[in-house]
């Protein structure tokens, strides 16, 4: 394969991975901004979504049918985690929130592993629509990567539109900007938090479905969400577009490092960069304050 085609292949595959990290980061950031909770159960919500999509697909409804099952299941599971965290940990406490969501992650995983037919085994999501390869000249492209790019673009556009046009979207944005001021204008903060958890769960379900054709479905797949956290944090937790940019940067950077640098450096580079980026931005925001 000629070098240009290979580079194109890596860029597309990296973007596909980056979109999935971005979708996870988007939900993670949304929850953090709306309720100040660092949600360690986000990866398990994604796994639940992937398993539901698998069940739907296996029942013969195809990936779209699978999504119809996965979206509400993951959204409700996410909402349950959010409500429980608010109830147990109270508002505005990231500390107890970490403990409660980490515990919820364990419970969700336990639920998946004890579900008959799911268990601890690895499952393949059989779908002609998502699996398989397209050829663009000499460049082989996984259909799942194309789907990830297209779906993410659609979701981002939809969210941007909803945030500007719909009443609910405007309310959520107002709540995220300044919950107290928003409450004064009649925006119910509890409802907005619920909305953020629901939305994040639905986004995680989409990520779970998109990741399944290449990475399979298994109870430990939630670990992928760690890259979503990194995506959300890389450009600050403040903006939704930042999560997507962070995801793309991590996905593409990881792929290119693995393809053109000595093996084993990619992982270290991602987290060292995240550490550096956070420290640097912390310094900048402090200067702005001073």
């Amino acid at each position: 394969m000629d070098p240009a085609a290979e580079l194109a292949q890596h860029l597309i595959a990296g973007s596909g991975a980056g979109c999935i990290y971005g979708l996870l980061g988007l939900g993670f950031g949304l929850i953090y901004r709306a309720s100040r909770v660092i949600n360690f159960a986000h990866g398990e919500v994604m796994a639940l979504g992937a398993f539901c999509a698998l069940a739907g697909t296996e029942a013969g409804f195809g990936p779209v049918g699978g999504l119809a099952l996965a979206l509400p299941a993951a959204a409700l599971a996410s909402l349950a985690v959010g409500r429980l965290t608010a109830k147990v940990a109270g508002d505005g406490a990231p500390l107890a929130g970490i403990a409660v969501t980490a515990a919820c992650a364990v419970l969700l995983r336990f639920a998946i592993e004890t579900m008959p037919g799911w268990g601890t085994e690895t499952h393949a999501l059989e779908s002609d629509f998502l699996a398989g390869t397209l050829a663009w000249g000499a460049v082989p492209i996984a259909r799942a990567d194309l789907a990830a790019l297209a779906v993410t673009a659609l979701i981002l556009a939809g969210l941007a539109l909803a945030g500007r046009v719909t009443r609910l979207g405007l309310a959520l944005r107002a709540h995220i900007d300044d919950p107290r001021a928003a409450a004064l204008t009649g925006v119910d903060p509890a409802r907005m938090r619920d909305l953020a958890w629901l939305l994040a769960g639905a986004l995680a379900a989409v990520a779970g479905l998109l990741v399944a054709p290449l990475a399979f479905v298994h109870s430990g797949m939630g670990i992928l969400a760690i890259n979503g956290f990194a995506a959300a944090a890389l450009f600050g937790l403040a903006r939704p577009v930042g999560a997507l940019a962070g995801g793309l940067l991590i996905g593409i950077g990881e792929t290119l490092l693995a393809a053109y640098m000595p093996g084993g450096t990619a992982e270290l580079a991602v987290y060292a960069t995240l550490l550096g980026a956070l420290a640097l931005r912390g310094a900048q925001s402090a200067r702005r304050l001073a």
Partner: protein
Amino acid sequence: MRGPGPAAAALAALALAAGLAGGGYLQGQLLLVGAYATALLGLQFLVGTAGLASLGQAAFLAVGAYAAAIALQAGLAWPLALALAGVAGGAAGLAVGVLLRRLDGGPFALATLALAFVAQQIAAMAATVTGGHDGLWLTGPGVDAPSRATLFAAAWVLFLLLFLAVRNLQAGRLGRALRALHQEPLAAASLGLDPMPPRGLAMALAGFAGGVGGALYAFALGFVSPEMFGPGASIALLVMIVVGGAARPLGALWGAVFFILLREGIALAKSVDPRLAADAAGLEAAAMALAVIAVLWLFPGGLARPRRTFRSKGPPQ
């Protein structure tokens, strides 16, 4: 109303005495409680006083554990190795404190989580020093490993000393400065309070306690490998201190006791009903998770509840 206080303290003293006298399995378990509790003291200071939720404490345990293992293999005596582990952990804590001096809240938690990843990766990659994935042994010929009884006594003496130190620091100047920075950042800034010295010191203390605790843990297991110190371990440590109670140093002890005893309780349930052991993929972890949620529900603030001071007499903040 301070949670299960005096009666439980008496029980703890009884168990310690039994551990010292009884030896064997109980002693091994209580040694682990001591190691965890020591490591948690540093985290408690960071979380409870400076309000910094660190997800990187396992990185400091790793620094201490590896420092101790390498020192032992170089032929040093174990008390020296233990001291070295504390110093190495403290230095690492100070360095991280300087690096992350401007962060708090969520960004601080995520940055320290990344730190845990980086530390684990370095331990795996620097194979010439750390043994890579094969790990390092703290036993064998030519290695001055302490006996379990000696280690048991050392762990609890160290815990007690650090406990007193942390309690005093928390009540003193350093504690006041950290609380001011956390609770009233604008006021602290307008007073010209530089966040760096107190935050750096707090991280150094977290690193020191983590290093000593990590070394004790490594001595107790006789083995260190990168798997032992990943982000999962860091998250578990933070959960322990939240359950134990982050507001007071006693929370470190409660957190460690809670987890080791709970694990014993589950093992006991399994031995009573073998079906539990047979069909329980992850049942133990799930039981732990339920217990964590239950404790936080019933005791907001953890088992070692915050003291009632003039601060909390008003309406809840």
